């Protein structure tokens, strides 16, 4: 049963990824991206990583896709299609991608992964929160603080850049 659901999720991820990069309408591409991200959250739910799946749903498919849709609405005309890709260009890009995927998959296939049998292993939020703010071994206080400064800087930068400039031109 879980196998079937996994293959379903994998099929959704791959099909909608392809549609995201090939769709002619830009808003449809954004919606296909949303499907990919939601299917990824489903994958995390299957692994029992509930908190990560919730973060994926809220930040990725809730935040980033909405941001992208707003950008599309502000910059593109609804009816206009994207201009078609040149055949040579798409051929070379496809060959390059397939070659890269082949090399990567070969390297992964020949690498001896030592899989560890785990229990159900759902981390509760308390353990994650304690780890996130702990100074001790395997504590994540430094990346936590760094990313908070980074998010503040990104927020200010986004406001400054997107603001209408009054002085010049």
């Amino acid at each position, binding site marked *: 049963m879980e196998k079937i659901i996994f293959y379903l999720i994998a099929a959704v991820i791959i099909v909608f990824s392809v549609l995201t990069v090939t769709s002619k309408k830009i808003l449809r591409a954004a919606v296909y991206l949303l499907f990919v991200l939601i299917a990824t959250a489903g994958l995390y739910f299957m692994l029992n990583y509930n908190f990560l799946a919730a973060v994926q749903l809220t930040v*990725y498919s809730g935040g980033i896709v909405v941001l992208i849709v707003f950008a599309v609405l502000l910059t593109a005309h609804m009816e206009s299609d994207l201009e078609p890709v040149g055949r040579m260009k798409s051929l070379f890009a496809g060959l390059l991608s397939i070659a890269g995927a082949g090399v990567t998959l070969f390297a992964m296939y020949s690498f001896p992964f*030592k899989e560890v049998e785990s229990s159900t*292993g759902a981390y509760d939020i308390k353990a994650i929160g304690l780890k996130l703010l702990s100074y001790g071994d395997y504590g994540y206080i430094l990346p936590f603080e760094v990313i908070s400064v980074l998010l503040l800087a990104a927020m200010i930068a986004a406001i400054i850049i997107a603001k209408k400039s009054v002085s010049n031109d």
Partner: protein
Amino acid sequence: MIEGIGVFDVLVVSTAMFFIGIYGFLVRKNLITILMSVELVLNAVVINFVIFNKYLYPEMLQGYMFGLFAIGIAAAEAAVAIAIILNVFRRMKGIDVEHVDTMKY
């Protein structure tokens, strides 16, 4: 871990997603669609972190935590990129990459 599914099966999915993102990055001309391709690539990387954590080191939290941080960084990156795209649209009257060649040469 998922019953009957090994680590390689999930890695195939994330690799496919990664290289589809690379393909879109090379082929697309509109800046927003390029940003979408980058999001695909980032998402594939997060899947890899999480899968390695779950299958190879299930008692640790490294992959989990860095998955969270990667999602946060993706959010920051998307916000700044969209601000830049809006600014480019206002100045160059278009967001295809051919329009943005003022600083070329």
